[in-house]
Each structure stands twice: as C-alpha cells, then as structure tokens.
C-alpha cells in the first residue's frame, strides 16, 4: 500500500476512516512531544512525563474522532488543542488550587525553562556565574518579546511546525507569522550569536 500523505490521511479520517487517526497521530507525535516538553510546568517535571501526556492525548483524540469530523480545524491544530487541554487538566490535577489560571500558564511556556535550554547549550567552561548572567539575559530577551512572537519562535523551532501550521495554530495570517518569526530571531540573535558556532 502506498504511503498516504498527511492531507490524504486527514481527508480519510474526515471521511470516516478511523484507522487513519493512529497513522496521523504517529506522524505528529514527535511535535506534540516537544510541545509538551517545552510547556510543562517546571514544578511538574519529574512527576509527569511528556510521553504520558502525549499518550493520554492520543486516547482522548481517539474517543473524540467524531468531534474532529464536525470541526473545520486542520488535524494538527485540533490535536494540539487537545494536547493543550490534557496538559491543563494535568496541571490542575497536580498543582490544584495553586493554578488559578492553568490555561494561561500552560500556553505560555515558562521563560526560565526556555532560557535554561539555551544556556545549557553552552559547552565552553565559562563558569557558573557567567551562565547565570546569560540565562538572565535570555530570559529577559524572551520576556521582552511579544507573546505571539515568542510562540512563533517556539512553534517553528521546537515543534517544527511550518509557517502555515504555526499561523493556523495561532490563528494569524501567514505573512504575519513569518514576519513575527524573523522579528523574534532578530531579537534573540544578539546574544545567541555570542554563543559561537556549534
């Protein structure tokens, strides 16, 4: 059997081929995994595994396949929303009353999580103090960004979404998404360039 494209799978799923769900999900698994990884509350790291979240999302998605057919959203957008909801539920469950606005916190990845990813990248033995400074710099750079710019950066880079997909997810025009992406890159470049080549 010929390998079907994402579009073909999506069309098949809409047409009633439930089995297409698993294949489609499998193709997006990696991205969803990354999505979770970057957005999981640092307090939950160690308690919840990104894999578990993705797995749970899959089960949920299977249950809701009918809802997908009613919905006009592209599969990726739909499944991301579902992942997002799973995370919110988990955050609520684990952090309980401390999370008054679970939804918002989940969608906005903790900037210190991101900054520490950048910083951990440094291999030169520059010493803890310098790293700490650098992390602070990255953190403030991220914090100073427009929220959507930051999202575009994350979606494009860490979740490996195409520009169109990122635009879909954020519900903005494609040119706007591209624009924002370049803007975010430019803002980061200042200190990212300091890191030196790989």
């Amino acid at each position, binding site marked *: 059997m010929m390998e079907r494209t994402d579009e073909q799978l999506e069309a098949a799923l809409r047409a009633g081929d439930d089995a297409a769900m698993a294949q489609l999900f499998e193709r997006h698994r990696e991205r969803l995994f990354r999505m979770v990884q970057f957005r999981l509350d640092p307090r939950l790291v160690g308690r919840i595994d*990104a894999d578990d979240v993705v797995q749970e999302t899959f089960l949920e998605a299977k249950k809701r396949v009918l809802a997908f057919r009613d919905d006009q959203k592209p599969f990726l957008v739909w499944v991301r929303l579902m992942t997002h909801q799973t995370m919110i539920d988990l955050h609520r469950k684990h952090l*309980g009353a401390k999370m008054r606005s679970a939804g918002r916190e989940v969608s906005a990845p903790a900037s210190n999580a991101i900054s520490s990813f950048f*910083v951990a990248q440094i291999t030169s033995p520059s010493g*803890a103090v310098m*790293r*700490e400074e650098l992390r602070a710099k990255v953190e403030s750079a991220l914090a100073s960004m427009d929220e959507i710019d930051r999202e575009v950066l994350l979606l494009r880079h860490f979740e490996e979404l*195409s520009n169109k997909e990122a635009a879909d997810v954020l519900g903005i025009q494609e*040119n706007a998404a591209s624009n924002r*992406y370049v803007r975010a890159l430019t803002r980061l*470049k200042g200190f990212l360039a300091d890191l030196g080549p790989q």
Partner: protein
Amino acid sequence: MTGEGDTQAREPIDLLVERFLARRRNEPRLSPEQFAGEHPQHAAALLELLPAILALEGHKRERVASGSGGRRAALPKLDRLGEFRIVREVGRGGMGVVFEAVQESLGRKVALKVLPQASLLSGNQLERFRREAQIAAQLHHSNIVPVFGSGESDGYHWYAMQFIEGEGLDCWREAQCAEQPQGPGAWRTRARFVARLGAQAASALHHAHGFGTLHRDIKPGNLLLQGGDHLWVTDFGLAKALEAEGLTHSGDILGTLQYMAPEQFHGQYDVHSEVYALGVTLYELLTLKPAFAAGSRSELMERIRQHRREPLRKACPELPADLVVVIEKACALDPQDRYADCSALARDLRAFLDDQPVAARRLSSVALLWRWGRRNRALAALAVATMLAVVSAGAMGWVSYGVASEALGRAEKSALLAAQESRRAEQNLDITLDAFGRVFDALVGPAPLVAVDEDEETGEATVVVRAVVDPKDLALLQEMLAFYDRFAAQNTGNAALRFETARACWRVGAIHARIGAPANLEAAGKAYQQALDHLASIADRDVRRERAAVLVEAAQLARRRGQPDAGRAALVESLALLAALASDGSRAIRLAQAEVHYLLANELPFGRRPPAGPGGRPDRVGEFERDRERERAASLREHAGKAMALVESVLAEDPASDDAKSLKARCLLLANRSLRRPDPGRGEGEREKTQQAAIAILRDVVARQPERDDDRFELCRALLEPMRPEDGPRGPREPAQLDAAACKEAADHAARLVSSQPSFREYQRLQAQSSLVLGRALLAADRTSELAAARVARLQEAEAALREAVRIEGVLTVAGAPLDRMLVQHSLQSRRALVAALEAQGQRDEANAEVAAALDRMQQFVADRSNLPRLSELLAMRAGSTDGTLRDQLRAMVERTGDPVFVERLRAMLARVPERGEVLPPEGRRGR
C-alpha cells in the same frame, strides 16, 4: 514542513533560514558563511542569524536525543578539589559523584559529594544548598552521618561528610535477593534485623525533625549499613536544596518517586511523609522488592495514590504479625493513619524487638471493612443488599437443597454428588454469614449501653446509651435487620441451623437496641428472648458463652426500658453460666465474669432512692426501705469487690490487656462513686488517689488506642467527676476545687468524642458539661487572680466555654424531644455561669439578655417543680433588670402550670418583681 504554498506570504529571510536548515539535513557540513555567500543580497542578515539558529537547532536535537530531558552532566576525572585529595570514586548518583577523599589540612578521610559543574546553581539554590549543609552539620546523632562542611572549589560545589565504611541498603537488598530466607526462623532473623535498622533510622529522623530538618529523600540508598548492624542516615535535606529548581532531573526523581508519599504529589510534605518513606523502605528491605515497583512515571504515581501494592502480609506470609502491623501503619495511605512521628515508629519497632505488644494494632479485617463502608457508604449499602439477596436465596435454598439432595441421595449413584453439593452450599452459607457477621460487628459494635449516670441532685438515674451511630447507617442496619429476621424465621425448624438462627435473633435484638426507638426496644427484648430460646434448645455444642453474652445485652436493654429487676435477674443468670464455664481458667471468661459483676455493682442508682417527696429531697424513708437499702448496698459492694478481684487476677497474668485495664479503671471509679454519698467523711485523700489512678489507667489506654471511645468517655467523666457540685446542707454548692487543667483535658476528650460520633447525644452532653465546668473553673480562678489582663483573658475564655455549653445544650433540647431533666439543669447552670462571666466583665446588657433567654427556655420546663430553685436564682439575677417583660414571663408561667404549690411560689416571686418601668437601676440606665 512544506513551504511551497505559502512562499508569497513570507519574509525572504524566513524562507532562506528554512532552506538553510533543510539543506543542512543532507549536508551537515554546510556552514553559515557558505550559505550566506550563495545569497549575497541577504548575506549580512544571514551571517548574523544563522549561527544563533544553529545553536537553537543543535540544542533541540540534544534534548530530543536525551529523551525526557534529563541531562546527566559528566564529571571529568578529578585528582584534587581544593584541599581534598581524591582517592577514588565510590558512587555516582543523579545529584553528583561521591568520592573517597582525604582532607589534607586535617588528614582525615571524608566522603566528598561533588555536584556536577554543569548544574547551574542559582543564587537561591546555592544559598539553600549551603543552608541545608549547615543545618545537617548541626545534627549530632549516632545514626546520622556527620557533615563536615560544604563549599566551592574550582567551580564545583562540594559537600564533605564522614566517610562511612559500608554500603547503601539498596546494595544490601540486591545482594540479599539471591537468598530469600527459608523457614520461619530465618524470616524471624530477617524481621528483627530490619526492625533494628528501622528503629535506628527512625530515631535519627526524629532527632533531625526536632531541629526542624526534614530529610526529604528517604530511600534504601540513603541508609548506609556499617559493620553489619549499624545504620547511618545520609544526605539530609540535600534533595530539597537541589530539587526545587530542577537540579535533580526527572531520571533522578524517578529513583525516589517510589518512596514518595501520596500527599507529596500535591505538594504536602511533613513528618508523616517521612514516616511513610521509611515505612516503604522497610517494606522493601523485608520483601526485597520495592513496595511500588518502577514503571512509567504517571502509572507509578497512580499506583501510589491508590495504594495499589501487595499487602505486606501477602508478600511475606512468614513475617511476624506484629512487625507487619507496624510497617503497614507506617506506610498507610492516609497520613492520619500513620504514626504521628518517627519516635512513635521507633518505639513500636523496639517494642517488637523486645517482644512487647505494639501500639499499632492490626487493622482487623472488620475494621477495614468498616472503613471501606464509611468511605463508600452507598456502595456498602448496595453490597449489603446484594449479599442479602444472595444469602437469603442461599439460606433458603439450602434448606430445599437439603431436601433435594436427600431425595437424590436415595439414588445410589448420585449420593456422592449430593453430599458434595450439600457441603458446598453449607460452606457458601458459612462464608456469607461470616462476611455478614463482620459487617454487623463493624456497624453495630458492642452493646449500646455505655454507662449509668446519676443526677447529682435528685439521685435519679439516666441511662447513657449510644444511639444509632449515624442516620446514614440506619438504612444499612435495616437491611441487615430484614436479612436476619428472614433468616431466623426461615430456619426456625432447622436443627442444623439453629445456632445461626439464634445468632441472627441476637443480632436482630442488637440492631433494634441500636436504633433505640421505644418500639425497637420492645422488639429487641423479644428478639433477645428468641435468641435465648434457640440457644437453650441447642444440645450438640456448648453455647453457654453465647447465652451469657446475650443475657448481658438483654440485661442492659431491660435497664434502658426501666426494668431494673429483670436486668438484674438476667445478669445473675449470666453470671451463673459463666461461673460454670470458669473452671477452664480462661482469662476471657474471668474477664467476662468481672464485667458482669461490675454491671451488677453499677446497678447502684436504680431504685436506690424512693421517689422524691414534696420537698424535692428524700427525707423520710421507712424502716423497711432502709433495710432493703442496706441489703442492697452490701450486695453491690460484694459485686464490686468480686469484679475487682477478677480483674486483678487477669491483670496479674496479662498486665498488657487493655480490656482488663479499662475494666479496672471503671471498677475504681465505681468504688469512688459509691463512697461519695454514704460515707463522705472517709479519707478524701484516698478517694482522690483512687480517682487519679483510674484516670491514669484510662489515659494510658486511650493514648495508645485512640479509637476506644468508651474508654475516652469514661476518662472524660472521671476527670469531671471531682468537680461536680457537692452536697451541702442547703442543696448543692460549688465544688471545693475546680481544676482548670483537668477541665481542659476533659473538654478536649469530649470534643474528640463528638467528632468521632457526631450524632451521639451523650457525647455532646459531655462536651457541654465539660465546657460548663471549664467555664466555672476559669471563673473561680478569676476570683483569686490579680493581674487585670490575665483576668480579662480568663473571663473571655470562660465565656467562650460557657457559650459553647449553652449552644450544645440548645442543640440537644430540640423541640418535641422528651424532656431531659439533667440536661435542663445543666443548661440552666451553664446560663447562670455565663451570666456571671458576663457580669464579671461588666457586660450587663449581654448578661441581661442571657437571663431573658434562659427564662424563655424555662417556659418549656416550668411544669417540672424540681427546676424551681434554678428558676428563682434566675429571677433573682434578673431582679435588677430594666426590661419589664419579667412580669409577663412570670404571669405566663403561672398560667401554664397547674401545680398549686408551684403557682404559689411563682406568685411570691411575682410579688417581688417590680412593675414594668417601675424601678430603673442606675447600671441599667447607663447601658441604654
């Protein structure tokens, strides 16, 4: 990531970046410079952005490669770190590497824990890490690895501890896995070994807790074993110092997740969690496998939360039961079910080692069932209903089965099958009856009569009865009642089932007694009689114990129904049965005898006094009555003496028996009570000593077994008893001494009782009473107090206690309920004391309002003459009131009561009360 369709809409740089990344996948050596050279018009921007993008990308790959994001930073080979010469690496964990090293300045061998350089300690973390090290360095305990210090050298953070020549218990466990103990002897050795280690660890932890330090990472790997039996706890607080901001990564936490208490998942962590972690660790050391085996993180967490692990008893059936109980208590799901602290755990482990009884009593299957029933009440009701259907079908079917199989049995070839079937049916019936009996025991508990209380003034007896435990249980009880009723009715003629039928009747009686409405009490009496009849007709087994037990319950029922003579007869009969059994010398029988003697002796108040004369107090008693009285008193003393002798004989053989201890305390209290009136002059000091002895016994029992509500009840009463008003020439007067500390203790116990059985009136009464006495004690102390501030505080405390008393009494005297004279009196006393407290604080208006409220209440009770003295007191207090409703109230009372004597008195009072607005005392005016 296909970008064809949207190229028009995108920034050129964006497209170029994407193209660059796409090409890099096939040409890993493609450099930014080369790519920029191919696109000269964007070269500058590309040269600026691409290196950063590569950094991002590379980082991403690394993270993905490392799975769930853990990074285990490598530590280069170190020879030296600051003043430490490194000898060898001894271990490697998530939080760093442990070296054996020599601290050269002191020439001592140390264990040096070095955190990986890559672990970035933020300012806060560093601070915390140092602080924890400092605190750990202050802990001096023979089972805590001494910490020498911490610091930073060459960019590494380190932590120096005494070097322990030993191994972690995780290693020990792995080594042991090869050889499971064989035979009970070997298991006993293992159990004792682990208990010894556990006791050491618990005592070390308790020491640390005393300094406010939690270990936070208790697991076998952090317990070191030296020289075969000395245990060291290591790494105090390190986990906490490093965890918070993600220094210990997922992989490392996973290692300890298995020992995490369920409450930790929602951020609660305290001493109870440490008890739990140690319990789970000991479990693992005993079974050689983790209580919660590793698995996916979320699945593992789910299992911990739901307490899904093999019960220790099942995992190691050969383990001594006491140790199983101790460990299971330590790792109970609910923190409240665990030991209160590590020292309690250590104590119990030592008790086990010394072959002493452990404080953690095993949660019997009944208790478990009971708890389950409490948690899942709806389910329990359903289960009972289902069981009921099955069992009734089974029981009734069984009878017909018997007939059927008999018929079958005639056919030769079916005989065997029939016998088997019959046996199976019998077994099933046994099992279901047994299961049902357990539910019954859990729900219905011991006989509902708790105590007999005596009115301090009139000498009238109030029977203290535990009512239906909870309205929610009522449905269950009624289901069970239906079952037992049907069972008894169905099987009356069946000799083989006669014993079960008798038991069913017995239980029907107990359930009715529990429900407690008058109709139920009557039904209970009938059921007990039926049970006794059935038992009497059983010839093939010895049922004397059962008969004795039913008789005791029937006797208590008779007392409740106001038939003291019938009760007495039943007790005497029971005693005769037990006496016949006593020849086998069993302690249980002797204890039962003691109990019956005690009950007989405790008959004291019943019928002891002739009905009160017109003066409210018995003053003329006929010669005949006096003789009878003397006779009876002698008999009561005799029973009391016998009860005590029997209890002492049981205690001599089994000094740890809580049942015997509790009965002894009751006997002591009873002796004191009976002394009170007839011989008030006799050694007050001795009485006091006896009282204190009883209190001490009960305190001890209750402290070790907090669920013994009846003992707590007794204790509470015993504490309050000396503070009852005493008989004086002119009625009761305030007791000589009011001990506020004892009152507080009693009030605490009462509060606990009420929270344990909220619908049990007697407990509420006790709470009201203890609040009242506490309030009075505080008021009495007030008189001697000099400091104004202390005085105000005490008065306020007294007021609060008294208000509590008034509140509870208000709840208890619900409209329509039968009049409870003791309660009325208490309620009036509470009000009076409250008014006194308010007046002492200068709150006249509030005091007046309380008096008015009390008078309002009196309207209900006005028909009862014995309330008259209190009423006059209230009126006297009210005499200065400006509120003119007093006359109206009095008039209303006169109208309501038909008793000429009372009307006379009320009129006299009325005459002393000013007309509305007639007199306005200055205080009152000021208050307006």
